[in-house]
């Protein structure tokens, strides 16, 4: 057995080196055999020609026999494949124009779909820069069917000690902290931090850029606590990660030392910038009722399944409820959910779905285009393939040869596509680097993306060539010889090619709709006009730290009075205001009930709820349109009042006076609130293209403003109206005033004017728009190349016919018309289908996200502004693709074509 295997292997290797000799030996041997047979027939009395014919018949198909014989030499399939690829490469070089077109289309298709796939994978698998294990679970109390509550530190420590089925328990407690270098408190900054178990970084396996991560000893209570910091902290306070590590810093009043700096983009789990280890021993002996809550996560031990862990945790929870009824009475069941899923909300799910769908769509468009190109190349080779078949080549061999041609093209496309994906992902990372999106800063080619490229290349190579290969294998030499023109036409697959043109135009147009929709917001942002001077309004969001407030008043009202007095002393400050609205404008979305309107539709309506100080309007330099503004007399104990914006008044009380009407924020629970004033619109006007869009927007832009004495205002935004508010002296003065009056208050984010904030949004939208432009450009390029290939190919098939038409007097216009006419219908069908699909998607959007009915006409009004330019672009691109083949057709010389025949 062993010897036999060794002999075979030896024969394989021998065959590799002696192949040409063996081949010629076989040829000679077969020739000799046929000669002997011929002579035998001649001796029997046949003429030499008949004898030869009879000998060949008795011998059998020479090519098949050679193929079968070669297979016995070993390594045959491998060598054949190598030979086919070599031949494929020769074809690629020989038909350089179609090769370049196919490679460009495939490279764009594979590149873009890899970018989309990587984006989807990144969103799906990571958050804050870490890849999470599927066996890592979030452990929390179950309250209701869909909600969980964090676990108290006492219960967490109890679970950690008692549970057998889960290991690597990690507690995470979020907090905000004021970070500064020793003796440079004035330059400090508030950051989100996480106090965690020392094994926290096991979750993500992310390694520090410099320094080290926590070990078990780090959790001990030390005078100088070790911390790990993010890239943001390093770039704000140090020259490099190396400089940061080992430096003593201060968090609040606690001296700390930086032991590690994480790489750019790592902000796990929720936008954290600083991580401090703890073994939670500070809570030993503390009351259970005062035990803070922490996020708890743990990994399922090998050999255990989730239901086992669930049963064990539920038993422990029930025991805790019996043992500590005061704190645990309502917590009898633990909820286990995959930790990874915590980072994927519904929106992310939609984006992931869209990205994967887009990735498949782009690949499909590329395949359709390459299909056309491979048909054209195969048609050119139809003579050669037919001759091979007539000489006895098997059908499978011919099919494989054409598929190898497709695979050669797709391999080259994959290589270039990989480069495009790498550059594209770099570009995407650069666009997103400015924004606080943890985990989404570092898009790069991962092993799974490379695997995707390989699969995509193989699939697109095979899919785009299988049908041309099948048709090519059916070509008969007889047909070729009978009629030269028809022969190459026999490879042409009429209805499939037209269907592909229709679907290619449809998919490309749909993708262009998508890319154009990314451009639209940038047009809007450039034209946005605020109803107040955006450069004279400074905004700062502050965590007030009321418990530590050193003034006489301990509520927001008192603290704000002191802050206002301080701010007004700053030269140039004209007015101040306080509001819970982000940026001073964007309220919290709440559902509300309008008195006397109890039907379901109204009960579902939501509005932006803004809590504000009485001087809120002053900061914008605005006055109520009707009724009155909030006043200091609207106190906690007085009548509950509110102001509304015109959108709210028009939406709920069209044609009626809003003043005096009453609303409730939480239907059936809170007190009625009386509308006392209507304020002017503070937000910029959003241009709409239809009444339906306007109605949808009207609903989401309704605003209710409540006095801060009657509703909680945690982490409010302070508004300071001043001349030239972007001047740095205001920022310094605001920081100093806050430090002096409320030293424990924390500035969240940066102190910026409204204009500066708009610039940030504008930059973001411009970046997204740029991504859209490149995406759209690439799709358009693919579309043009695909259309050009098929039209050029079919035109070349009709050279003879065109020549004859011209010879009998057809003019250039008639020729051009005859060349282009068949494609107009296919392109028009593709465009129509794309428009219908887009209209349907748009209707679905209204159906899912709007509570108002939208008529067909209204929906049409909203889609047309996007549909018309995109269809226009596709038509121009299509005409451009058709121009060269049409030009070539009218330049055909009839005499040349006829002579050729």
């Amino acid at each position, binding site marked *: 057995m062993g010897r*036999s295997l060794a*002999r*075979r292997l030896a*024969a394989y290797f021998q065959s590799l080196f002696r192949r040409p000799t063996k081949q010629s*030996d*076989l040829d*000679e*041997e*077969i020739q*000799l*055999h046929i000669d*002997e*047979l011929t002579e035998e027939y001649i001796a029997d009395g046949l003429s030499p020609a008949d004898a030869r014919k009879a000998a060949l018949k*008795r*011998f*059998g*198909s*020479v090519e*098949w*026999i050679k193929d*079968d*014989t070669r*297979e*016995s*030499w*070993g390594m045959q399939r491998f060598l054949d494949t190598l030979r086919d690829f070599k031949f494929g490469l020769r074809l690629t070089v020989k038909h350089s124009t179609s090769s370049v077109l196919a490679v460009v289309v495939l490279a764009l298709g594979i590149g873009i779909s890899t970018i989309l796939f990587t984006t989807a994978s990144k969103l799906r698998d990571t958050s804050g820069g870490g890849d999470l294990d599927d066996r890592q679970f979030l452990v929390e109390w179950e309250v209701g069917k869909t909600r969980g509550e964090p676990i108290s530190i006492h219960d967490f420590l109890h679970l950690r000690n008692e549970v057998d089925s889960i290991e690597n328990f990690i507690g995470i407690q979020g907090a905000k902290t004021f970070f500064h270098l020793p003796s440079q408190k004035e330059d400090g900054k508030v950051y989100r931090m996480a106090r965690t178990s020392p094994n926290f970084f096991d979750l993500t396996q992310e390694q520090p850029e410099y320094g080290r991560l926590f070990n078990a000893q780090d959790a001990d209570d030390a005078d100088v606590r070790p911390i790990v910091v993010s890239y943001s902290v390093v770039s704000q306070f140090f020259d490099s990660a190396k400089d940061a590590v080992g430096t003593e810093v201060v968090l609040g009043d606690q001296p700390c030392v930086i032991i590690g700096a994480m790489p750019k983009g790592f902000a796990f789990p929720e936008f954290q910038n600083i991580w401090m280890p703890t073994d939670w021993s500070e809570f030993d002996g503390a009351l259970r009722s005062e035990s803070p809550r922490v996020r708890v996560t743990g990994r399922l031990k090998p050999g255990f399944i989730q239901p086992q862990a669930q049963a064990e945790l539920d038993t422990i929870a029930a025991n805790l409820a019996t043992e500590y009824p005061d704190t645990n009475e309502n917590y009898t069941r633990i909820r286990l959910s995959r930790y990874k899923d915590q980072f994927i909300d519904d929106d992310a799910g939609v984006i992931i779905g869209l990205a994967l769908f887009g990735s498949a769509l782009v690949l499909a468009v590329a395949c359709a285009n390459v299909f056309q190109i491979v048909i054209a190349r195969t048609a050119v080779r139809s003579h050669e393939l037919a001759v091979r078949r007539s000489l006895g080549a098997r059908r499978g061999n011919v099919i494989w040869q054409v598929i190898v041609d497709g695979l050669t093209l797709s391999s080259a496309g994959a290589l270039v596509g990989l480069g495009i994906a790498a550059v594209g992902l770099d570009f995407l990372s650069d666009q997103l680097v400015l924004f606080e999106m943890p985990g989404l800063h570092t898009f790069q080619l991962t092993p799974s993306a490379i695997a995707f490229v390989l699969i995509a290349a193989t699939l697109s190579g095979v899919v785009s060539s299988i049908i041309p290969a099948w048709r090519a294998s059916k070509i008969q030499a007889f047909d070729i010889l009978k009629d030269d023109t028809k022969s190459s036409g026999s490879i042409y697959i009429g209805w499939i090619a037209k269907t592909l043109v229709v679907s290619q135009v449809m998919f490309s147009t749909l993708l262009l709709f998508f890319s154009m929709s990314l451009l639209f917001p940038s047009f809007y942002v450039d034209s946005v006009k605020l109803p107040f001077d955006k450069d004279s309004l400074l905004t700062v969001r502050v965590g007030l730290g009321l418990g530590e407030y050193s003034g006489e008043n301990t509520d927001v009202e008192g603290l704000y009075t002191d802050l206002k007095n301080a701010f007004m002393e700053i030269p140039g400050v004209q007015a101040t205001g306080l509001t819970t609205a982000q940026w001073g404008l964007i309220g919290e979305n709440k559902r509300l009930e309008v008195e006397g309107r109890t039907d379901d539709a109204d009960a579902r309506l939501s509005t932006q709820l803004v809590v504000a100080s009485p001087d809120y309007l002053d900061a914008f330099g605005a006055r109520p349109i009707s009724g009155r503004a909030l006043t200091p007399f609207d106190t906690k104990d007085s009548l509950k009042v509110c102001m509304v914006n015109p959108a709210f008044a028009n939406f709920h009380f069209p044609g009626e006076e809003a003043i005096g009407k009453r609303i409730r924020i939480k239907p059936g629970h809170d007190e009625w609130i009386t509308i006392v004033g209507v304020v002017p619109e503070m937000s910029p006007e959003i241009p709409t293209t239809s009444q339906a869009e306007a109605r949808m927007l009207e609903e989401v832009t309704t605003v209710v403003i409540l006095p801060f004495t009657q509703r909680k205002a945690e982490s409010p935004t302070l508004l300071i109206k001043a001349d030239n508010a972007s001047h740095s002296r205001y920022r310094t003065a605001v920081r100093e005033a806050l430090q002096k009056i409320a030293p424990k208050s924390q500035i969240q984010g940066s102190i910026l004017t409204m204009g500066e904030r708009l610039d940030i949004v504008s930059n973001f939208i411009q970046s997204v728009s740029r991504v859209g432009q490149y995406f759209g450009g690439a799709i358009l390029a693919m579309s043009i190349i695909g259309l050009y290939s098929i039209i050029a190919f079919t035109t070349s098939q009709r050279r003879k016919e065109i020549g004859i038409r011209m010879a009998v007097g057809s003019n250039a216009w008639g020729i051009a018309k005859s060349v282009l006419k068949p494609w107009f219908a296919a392109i028009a069908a593709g465009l129509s289908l794309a428009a219908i699909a887009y209209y349907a998607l748009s209707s679905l959007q209204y159906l899912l996200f709007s509570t108002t009915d939208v008529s067909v006409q209204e929906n049409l009004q909203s889609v047309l502004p996007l549909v018309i330019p995109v269809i226009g672009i596709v038509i121009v691109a299509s005409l451009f693709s058709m121009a060269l083949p049409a030009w070539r057709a009218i330049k055909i010389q009839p005499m040349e074509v006829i002579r050729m025949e």
Partner: protein
Amino acid sequence: MPNQKKDLLQGTLDLLVLSVLSTGPNHGYRIARRIELVSQDALKVNQGSLYPALHRLVTKGWITAEWGLTETKRKARIYTLTETGRAQIKEEASSWVQFSQGVTAVLQTADLI
């Protein structure tokens, strides 16, 4: 099923070739004619199908091939049985006899022969 048939035919052809070569070295055309002659044309197949079998047997090491001259002084590849091949004939022949006896027994039971 077609593959099994092919394997069966391949195996049979190998045995026939080895049997012919056991009487002395020969070239392709002569081997084919010899098989036709001895089997009284019962095993008449395309003569070319002999070559894959010959090359397969060379790869297995059961026969060798060398260029030589035919009796009519023409250049030809002469195949010779090796010692391994000679030992293999016995095994192959015994399997074949066993197989054909089995088939005969079945046909006899069914009163078909």
